[in-house]
């Protein structure tokens, strides 16, 4: 059960934080992700001190909202990215990023372990696909996520095969909806 090639089980760490308020698990997550959040924010135009403050806030939010993380729909990196993105808008643009309605499993249920595993496989596949992109295309995608592409530029095809990961998430949403109703 890995979420990344170095073999750390981020999903297990997230659950330890959620269920046991496990500080060692949080420290491990922090050591890995906080510098990446900071790097991402600096690449998207934050100063070092803004990025530092923002990265700390993001990691505090990870602790606080651990119960909203659903590993059948996202990897830990994806989930932390969305928190960082939204926090960046709060901080830099003095504006908000409205988010879709929360959907979660509730106190007494978990997504199926097989779905969690499949999601991680899809994320690894996506990582390999990104690595294989021609340099120009990869640069375009990075500019979209780190910089400011105009609307017209964003209309350019990214060339990423997102169909299978999308279907996987769609399926996870269906199961969650069934559970919620």
């Amino acid at each position, binding site marked *: 059960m890995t979420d990344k090639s170095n073999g750390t089980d981020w999903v297990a760490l997230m659950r330890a934080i959620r269920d046991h308020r496990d500080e060692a698990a949080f420290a491990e997550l922090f050591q890995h992700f906080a510098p*990446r959040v900071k790097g991402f924010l600096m690449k998207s135009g934050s100063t070092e001190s803004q990025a530092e403050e923002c990265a700390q806030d993001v990691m505090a939010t990870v602790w606080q909202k651990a119960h909203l993380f659903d590993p059948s729909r996202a990897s830990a990196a994806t989930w932390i*990215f969305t928190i960082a993105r939204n926090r960046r808008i709060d901080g830099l643009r003095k*504006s908000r990023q409205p988010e879709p309605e929360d959907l979660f499993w509730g106190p007494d249920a978990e997504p199926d372990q097989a779905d969690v595993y499949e999601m991680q496989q899809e994320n690894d596949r996506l990582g390999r696909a990104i690595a294989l992109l021609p340099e120009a295309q990869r640069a375009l995608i990075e500019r979209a996520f780190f910089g400011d592409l105009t609307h017209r530029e964003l209309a350019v095809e990214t060339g990423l095969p997102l169909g299978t990961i*999308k279907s996987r998430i769609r399926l996870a949403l269906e199961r969650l909806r069934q559970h919620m109703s």
Partner: protein
Amino acid sequence: MTIRHHISDALLTAYAAGSLPEAFSLVVATHLSLCDDCRARAAALDAVGGRLMEEAAPVALSEGSLAAVMSRLDRRIEVPARPARRADPRAPAPLADYVGGRLEDVRWRALGGGVRQAILPTGGEAIARLLWIPGGQAVPDHGHRGMELTLVLQGAFRDETDRFGPGDLEIADQELEHTPAAEAGIDCICLAATDAPLRFNSFLPKLVQPFFRI
């Protein structure tokens, strides 16, 4: 709810990248709350962002930052309650954050012909507003200088391009001169965002325009 008109890839990518003005993000987030197909597409784009962040060169935090964060964590275990019921079933959470209670209780302002609007308090250069169009009534003929997003919350409207029912999103650019009209029957309520003031083509609404910040 059968949704036929969805968010374009370009718009969804801009949302995932966090580069949309707040008013547009509000419309996108409201549509995502109603449409699991688009929610899954958005989540797939988030996954791209997650990978890019994962692969970005890490920058070490200042010394003591972990301890600083640890010192402010709340140790209580969050018992996740079921998501609260919507105060107004037509207003998913992202919209409810701006509206408060029921859509009827919003501070509506008359635009003439029974059409009403309410500007929502978003930051940034774009404007979000709710539109209430009585069944069978047309919205004054208008074009836009920039992009206009219109999401149907109740009822339906038609214009020169198609029919738009609950959950449907129309993306109109400056090329489109349209005259949306609510279908006969139930009143049509929409959430709309524009990145430039609308330009109305008939005389009276033009006078009204600066006053209502359309």
